[in-house]
């Protein structure tokens, strides 16, 4: 109860200039549907081929 009776000091917020400001927020660009294979292990050679020839990362 003591805390309720304690006076709360009110202060005005300091008026500081904003060093940075957010000018825009947007969602990431929509990603196109990926190439998802559903035949399990038999799709591995095709996946590896795409990584090598299309994405060029292997």
């Amino acid at each position, binding site marked *: 109860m003591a805390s309720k009776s304690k006076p709360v000091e009110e202060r005005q917020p300091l008026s500081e200039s904003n060093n940075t*400001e957010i000018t825009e*927020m947007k969602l990431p660009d929509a990603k196109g549907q990926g190439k998802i294979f559903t035949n399990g292990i038999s799709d591995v050679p095709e996946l590896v081929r795409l990584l090598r020839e299309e994405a060029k990362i292997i």
Partner: protein
Amino acid sequence: MNKILIFAESKNNEFKSPAFEAVTAGKFIAEKLKSEFAVITVNNADENHLKSLGKFGAKDIYSVNLDDLNSLSGKPDIKYSHSAFAAVISNFAKTKGFGTILISATSFGKEIAPVISARTGFSVVTDIVDLSGIESKTVKRPSYAGKCYTQVKINSDNFILTLRPNVFKASESESEPAIHKIEAGTLGIGAGDFKSYVSEVVVSSGKLDVAEADIIVSGGRGLRGPEHFHLVEELAAVLGAATGASRAVVDAGWRPHSEQVGQTGKTVSPTLYVACGISGAIQHLAGMSSSKYIVAINKDKDAPIFQAADYGIVGDVFEILPAMTQEIGKLKS
């Protein structure tokens, strides 16, 4: 326009890709703003290692010797101190008139950037992924764990930018750099600048750090137990990749926390991220969705990871992973 100071981070006295990326980005900003740039390093690297920054366009490299800096602390067991690094960069920038500071948004950079901001009064924008608007002092950074992107306008003259690793590709631009040795004692550093320090570094493994890797193969609960992670490691070995893990398997004690990718682990942006037996919880996606290519392997065709994937196979990781390892191994040989 402000001169630009780039802090080139090193590990064991060698510069890695985040340092080269920072130099490339600094050169890009200097060209856009028609300004000058220089690089500062704090380590015990020899001249050949320092000159490796010249391959990426660094012309002026200011080198502070780490042993000399540490000697100012008066501590015999000191390895390094973040606060002292921040003091070096802050004091050097202020005395030499640098108004823009670039730092990699690595664990180290994330720790020193706000300290430098507090010391210099420069504003700071962290984890930047796009500098194309720098001419109007506007930069882009992810917010809310990567769920959206924020354009931030910098209103102050002096500012610090931290750059997300693996986003700004290091591009070679040969130059013969001038190495300027800076005596740590001339920078106004005292024992009081060593607020805390690292006294011992224990390397948990000699493996490639997941945060620095260009290719990552990560495993999740779909691997059913730590005894099956060799499948992930074998694929990682043929790809020259680091191994990562989802929070679920780290929490289960299957893998060390140093490998955890996600909101409560490391944020990564590799060229290729292979998610094996990972469902793709939003917290995991937050840490890897900015990867250039994502490959998902999961037996559940409705797993959210397939929404984020560029390529994927619906199937059993216990069959797919050995087959991929073999297929890629054939290509490599």
